[in-house]
């Protein structure tokens, strides 16, 4: 994986250049319409910002009253996607950051939109991220604002499904699904997706992040990797991680 990383990176550049040139052209045409829409949206967002600021200060005051222990802030590394999984049966991507950048197994991979997967293999300069749509992906999740618990299980389709939801649970289309934070792999409250529909008895979740269009992603270290057993061969090497400075604290 390490040896191929530079080649993959080099090859992915002209393609993404072509990609961006094409999208620039169509973006230009759509710019006028987009502008009108954005102005409207901006006005709406300003309202939301006011509401959020109010809530933030109220939240801070209430936390102060309760003496709530603060959650640990994570540190992150931003990485570029350099290879897709070419297989029909695996949903994973390779990124150009590895042990040298402070990436560890079990770290959460997120974009600005939400969770996309977790780091499963780490090389010195590259790492593999198992996407939440993969057949082998299981993420403990909850519906935002409720105590409902479920496991988000990938099945190689675009929409992973919710398993083991409690009986009689009132899942509705449009419910926001976030990580539960149990198992010590992901922190609680990372946005994952929304319930998009039902397939038999199982609810299907549409991930917030567009998994097939990810260019850059963040690998976040929350200091959790409790539930992941070490790979059977070769314990992780700790000697080379001197550049902790690359990961910067997230300001919330």
């Amino acid at each position, binding site marked *: 994986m390490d040896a191929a990383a530079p080649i993959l990176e080099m090859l992915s550049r002209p393609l993404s250049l072509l990609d961006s040139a094409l999208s620039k052209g169509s973006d230009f045409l759509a710019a006028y319409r987009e502008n009108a829409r954005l102005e409207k949206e901006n006005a709406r967002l300003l309202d939301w910002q006011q509401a959020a600021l109010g809530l933030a200060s109220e939240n801070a005051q209430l936390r102060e009253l309760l003496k709530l222990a603060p959650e640990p802030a994570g540190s992150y590394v931003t990485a570029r996607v350099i290879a897709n999984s*070419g297989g029909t*049966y695996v*949903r994973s991507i390779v990124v150009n950051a590895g042990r040298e950048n402070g990436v560890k197994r079990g770290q959460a991979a997120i974009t600005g939109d939400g969770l996309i997967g977790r780091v499963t293999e780490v090389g010195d300069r590259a790492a593999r991220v198992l996407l939440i749509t993969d057949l082998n992906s299981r993420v403990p999740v909850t519906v935002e604002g409720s105590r409902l618990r479920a496991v988000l299980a990938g099945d190689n389709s675009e929409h992973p499904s919710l398993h083991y939801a409690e009986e009689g649970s009132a899942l509705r289309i449009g419910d926001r699904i976030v990580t539960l934070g149990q198992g010590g792999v992901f922190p609680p409250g990372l946005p994952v997706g929304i319930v998009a529909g039902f397939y038999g008895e199982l609810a299907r979740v549409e991930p917030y992040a567009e998994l*097939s269009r990810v260019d850059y992603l963040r690998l976040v270290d929350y200091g959790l990797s409790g539930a992941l057993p070490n790979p059977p061969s070769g314990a992780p090497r700790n000697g080379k991680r001197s550049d902790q400075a690359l990961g910067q604290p997230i300001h919330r």
Partner: protein
Amino acid sequence: MTSLLPVATIIFAMLLSIEPVHIPGYAAVTPAFTLMAAYHWAIYRPALLSPLMLFVIGTLQDLLTGALAGVTALLLLLTYAIVLTHRRRFVNRPFPFIWGGFTLLVCGAMLFLWSLHSLLAAELIDFRSSIFRAVLTISGFPIASFLLGRTQRALMDAG
């Protein structure tokens, strides 16, 4: 130098199949480029392919894509073996005949992959993406074969 061309194109095909292309759902149905190249060269220049190289390239592709290690290597080697044992049926035949052979091969390969993964996952995996992948691979073969043939003529037969 030109004797390295088959191996070089198969390596290129491997890199092509793991490129991140931003088309929704493309990753799941990426055509089996290496299979196309291996089939083409096994018919037209079998002497320049070695089973060892096919094994190495196939294994490398599996490791890079995170697929089941060894599966692609096995498919490439089987392709090589099947074409070589039936070689006299392929030589000097019109292209549609060769394309038909490839179609049979791809259908067999996709069925094999699907049953293997279903067995491992202990459930019947959705086979639609396998079918799409087979269709894309089969319909992509004439283009790949044309390009490979042109490269072959330009570099090997001239030199």
